[in-house]
């Protein structure tokens, strides 16, 4: 995977650390606090939508950082991309990068010993890479080979690794300790494969091209996610996002293998 030169990385690191440091409490001249009418002590109940979060203070800072990053850089770039690129081309880009991810899906299906699912994913990759013209189109889905997303975080979960604390990653957003490790492992595998294949090696400027491709991939990913930080206006959005992330991952780990006998589908409706 492409690594930006240090000079380009420094501002981001600096920005994050300044940002984290800048959250110190402010002095106010308000009269002393008075206890509120309702406090938590009066309720004898389980916590609602609760996910353990020992790093909450850090996570909330990062959540806010991501909001600013989105607002001032990422979303304007994505908007620009959406403006100058025809929708047809946008879909081909999404399809292309989606096809590359099948490598990750396949590796992790195999690591989870999901036989039928691995074959489906392999079938998808071969079909879309050939008939789908290098992944620009997705004929596999219409052949009944449905996409099965897998990643190393799910593989770890499958083998019983606990999610660990909730973690909001810079730019990438909601994650957990386990899923961050999984993300690193997936990235390392991809980097290894990329170094081995060296697809831009003969072009003369492989670094620049790789950088361009990585940027396009990031823009495409953000383009596909409609979520905007704080857009709900809900003061407890952070908790809702945390809960939904956690729940989604738990359900993904419990997801039935493709060979499972689910309830019969109603024919003709899908």
């Amino acid at each position: 995977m492409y690594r930006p030169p240090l000079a380009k990385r420094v501002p981001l690191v600096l920005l994050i650390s300044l940002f984290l440091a800048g959250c110190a409490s402010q002095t106010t001249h308000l009269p002393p606090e008075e206890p509120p009418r309702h406090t938590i002590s009066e309720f004898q109940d389980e916590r609602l939508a609760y996910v353990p979060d020992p790093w909450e203070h850090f996570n909330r800072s990062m959540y806010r950082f991501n909001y600013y990053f989105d607002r001032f850089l990422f979303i304007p770039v994505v908007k620009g991309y959406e403006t100058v690129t025809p929708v047809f081309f946008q879909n081909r880009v999404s399809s292309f990068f989606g096809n590359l991810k099948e490598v990750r899906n396949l590796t992790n299906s195999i690591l989870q010993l999901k036989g039928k699912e691995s074959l489906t994913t392999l079938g998808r990759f071969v079909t879309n890479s050939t008939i789908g013209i290098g992944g620009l189109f997705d004929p596999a889905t219409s052949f009944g080979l449905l996409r099965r997303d897998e990643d190393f975080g799910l593989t770890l979960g499958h083998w019983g690794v606990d999610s660990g604390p909730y973690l909001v990653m810079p730019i990438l957003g909601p994650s957990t300790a386990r899923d961050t490790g999984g993300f690193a492992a997936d990235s390392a595998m991809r980097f290894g494969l990329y170094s081995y294949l060296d697809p831009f090696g003969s072009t003369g400027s492989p670094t620049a091209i790789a950088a361009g491709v990585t940027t396009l991939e990031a823009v495409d990913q953000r383009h596909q996610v409609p979520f905007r930080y704080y857009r709900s206006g809900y003061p407890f959005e952070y908790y809702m996002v945390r809960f939904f992330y956690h729940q989604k991952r738990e359900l993904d780990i419990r997801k039935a293998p493709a060979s499972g006998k689910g309830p019969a589908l109603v024919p003709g409706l899908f």
Partner: protein
Amino acid sequence: MQTRSGGFFFAVQSFLEVNRMRIPTLLLAALLLSPLPCRGEETYGYPIAGAYEATLLGTPTELRSQLPPKVRTRTLLLQLNSEEKPPVFFYDNGLRCTFAYQKKKAPLVFVIGPTGASDQSSTAMSLLKALYHAGCHVITIPSTTHPNFIISGSQSHVPGDLATDASDLYRVMESAWKEVEGDVEASAFYLIGTSLGGVQAPFVARLDEERRIFNFRKVLMINPPVSLYNAVVRIDSLLNGVPEGPGREGAFFNRMLDKFTDFYSYGNFVAINDDFLYAVYQERLFSREEAGGLIAISFRINSAGMIFTSDVMTNSGYVVPKNRVLSSNDALSDYFLVCTHLSFLQYFNEYLYPHLRKTRPELSKEEFIASLSLKTLDRYLRGNRKFGIMTNANDFLLAPDELLYLQELFGERAIVYPRGGHLGNVQYRENMARVVDFFTKD
């Protein structure tokens, strides 16, 4: 982005945006294939019979009206309140309204949404698209109960009094119109409100009779409560039927979640998709009481945002210690827990009513409750051809005598559908077609 699926974020958004867990349910179309067990209503094709189920599930995707995929819109960010915002709401940079505009002279419709709805709630957006498609300009406004409105739209920062809400809404509409009047031409002004917005709409219209900025030609109310007070009592009481009882919302929520999760993992489903949701519905995973409880919980999650935001804005010391300045990084989970345990009635009795008494010490509670009802506008609404109403026979926010009252008050201008629960059928194509007809046909 690490996010594996855009669907997840869709879920977050839709969970946050509406007062019910509206779920896309393509597969409910299957219900159409089986004959409906009711008589005399066969012409109405909305399929979900149960009031709670309809409210939770909404309209199956295939039964919604065809809406244009592309609508010319822009976001209006209105600056109405000049005071400094508390640091915990640092992200709020003005009142957000969505404006869809035609390139030619056209009527302009204002849309006011249900409790907790933003300007982009699914109900508001489907109304916006349908009316835009019919040739109107549209401006959607967040509900007065939405945190964004409480912070940046409201002058008192305390929602719930219909007269105050109406004057806040009117101020927002004036400001929104001022923002766009240089760019578009409006041939007339219309108003449409759903649920809470439905009962607010005639109060706004009556204010307009005095101020005469818009001279609303037509006003449509969809699923309005008759008495706001009765409606909140009914919502609160939905939690009485669940085994955990009121006060144990967390335990109830977690039990429902476990049920949902277990059903998913033991049922060998491949994803949380339409198959799965249809199975949840078909298997009657949740009892009637539990479905009612889920509706109440989603109202609670919404009202928690309302209570917390209003309390911070007014420094009232209701759930946040008085004089505490929350920073953007402070943990809010305890406030979340406290607020989700407070009923609408507590908000009314302990917060809203005392707040109004500060400026109107003579106001008795009975007078206050009476003022929160359409009946106070009886003389204004009776025979007034400007108004139309659409509601459902099984809208559980209406007592039987309240439904009769609406039918009697509006006569032939009241459309009562046999089913749909509370707002479950708004996006159904026949309902949407009649909404459009109301504004486009004389």
